[in-house]
């Protein structure tokens, strides 16, 4: 059934065992993002080391798509430098807007390609993007702090 495109095993796994879902006490920037249409919320902390994404931790509540997406994000982006992270984020954004026509670059996006099915459900795209928007916001703030 088509729904299986949306709810791939990987997603449900991340939903059940979310990665880095525990706010680290120290951070360079903390942001709180909301999805106003469904009430999902996320708090996300970012720690940089120069332009290296040293740590990302988060807490929040939301649907499996939003929770899995941010969980996958932490796995993907921690340890990358900001330029690489940007490339990944752009690729993910592109995938989300593909309306089901693309599968995603598995090399680059790893587990995140499991979210490809979301692009066929317009109302869910913002679920998948919640954590990514929060990361973008937080990393800009963290960078600004370095001066």
């Amino acid at each position: 059934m088509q729904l299986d495109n949306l709810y791939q095993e990987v997603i449900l796994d991340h939903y059940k065992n979310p990665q880095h879902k525990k706010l680290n006490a120290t951070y360079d920037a903390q942001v709180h993002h909301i999805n106003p249409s469904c009430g999902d919320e996320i708090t996300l902390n970012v720690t940089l080391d120069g332009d290296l994404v040293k740590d990302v931790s988060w807490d929040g509540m939301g649907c499996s798509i939003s929770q899995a997406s941010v969980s996958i994000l932490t796995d993907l982006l921690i340890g990358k430098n900001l330029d690489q992270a940007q490339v990944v984020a752009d690729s993910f954004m592109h995938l989300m807007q593909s309306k089901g026509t693309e599968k995603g670059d598995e090399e680059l996006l790893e587990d995140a390609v499991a979210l490809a099915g979301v692009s066929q459900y317009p109302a869910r795209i913002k679920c998948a993007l919640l954590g990514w928007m929060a990361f973008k916001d937080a990393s800009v703030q963290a960078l600004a702090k370095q001066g």
Partner: protein
Amino acid sequence: MTFDARTIAKDFPILSRTIRDGKRLVYLDSGATSQKPNVVIDAESDFYRLHNAAVHRGAHQLAEEATDAYEGARSIVANFLNADIDEVVFTKSATESLNLIAYAMGNAQIGNRFHLNAGDSIVVTEMEHHANLIPWQQLAARTGATLKWFTVTAEGRLDLSNLDSLVDASTKVVALTHQSNVLGTINPLEDITRRAHEVGAVVVLDACQSVPHMPTDVKALDIDFLAFSGHKAVGPTGVGIFWGRADLLAELPPFLTGGSMIENVTMESATWAPAPRKFEAGVPNMAQAVGLGAALTYLTAMGMDNIHQHEMSLTKYLLEGLSVITDLRIIGPKTTDLRGGVVSFTLGDIHPHDLGQYLDSQGIAVRTGHHCAWPLTRKLGVPATTRASVYLYNTTDDLDALISGVQGAQKYFGR
């Protein structure tokens, strides 16, 4: 005529379409917007095909016919509510109606009974839809008045224990919903209207979830203003009703200004026509008003009492059916006592958004989220719920589909 939802459903063309690979549409989202019977769709089309012209403005035959159709719709609405015809104002939606009264009060000058200032208070409830909360927040901010509210109990009822202290001499308006769009709770109004009138406050009723579903008599309710949306009452989108007591409408300043609502206009200033014209600036939503007239005529023919009873028995069936599902928690009253056919629930760890998506894959349309009543869902500790809402065209088949859909979701996400 006996009431038969299966026959009624045939009047609604959308209900015979299919969803996601040929599944039957099970529409349980009438609390968000209702579907439309052919008579309503045709009333709008026929207006355009036969009588379209600007009402109140032309000396030609089309303008006469359009005016008759439009004013005829007003009198249908008035009858439906047991109101006087000049008390009925066409707006674009309940949201506009509620903004109308809040902004109009903000326009009241000193000396006008609706004038508000720093010592005054506005009372709402914790279970309001954003449409009956934010306009009052804004009015309070503009005027310096204080916003207060009745809280909601864990069972999803208004806590009226502090009625006499909350509604006091400072209170100028008490605005509340007749039926919660999240909990299904129907609020008992008698004590509230009595107390409000005792202290000289007006009562504004958000009747979005009640007018479409039960007989409404504005005189018997002893309220002062009422708002509802056509689209939730088998009517067209783009039309709502603002009703107010004639003596109050006479004193209430206008909201939107422009053509057709004036008595006299110079470059410097303007004076106003009497109500309802005073509140209907511009060429109105004529076809939609006519469509709403057809909708209320249709509902009347089906019988508002029948509709209410039908929904009550569906609600009972649904509450019972859901009660046996493990991990399912009803948010709101668990019996049909003072509640309508809007049933919200949570399902263990399965997020409403995921549940809704699964149900959709089975052709079942429900709503998920905070239902534009975010302070309420937060207060109850459930930022989001899944909501099923029934109407005259729903059957126990629809509810059976929902119940097994919910169980299917448990299996699906439990893998």
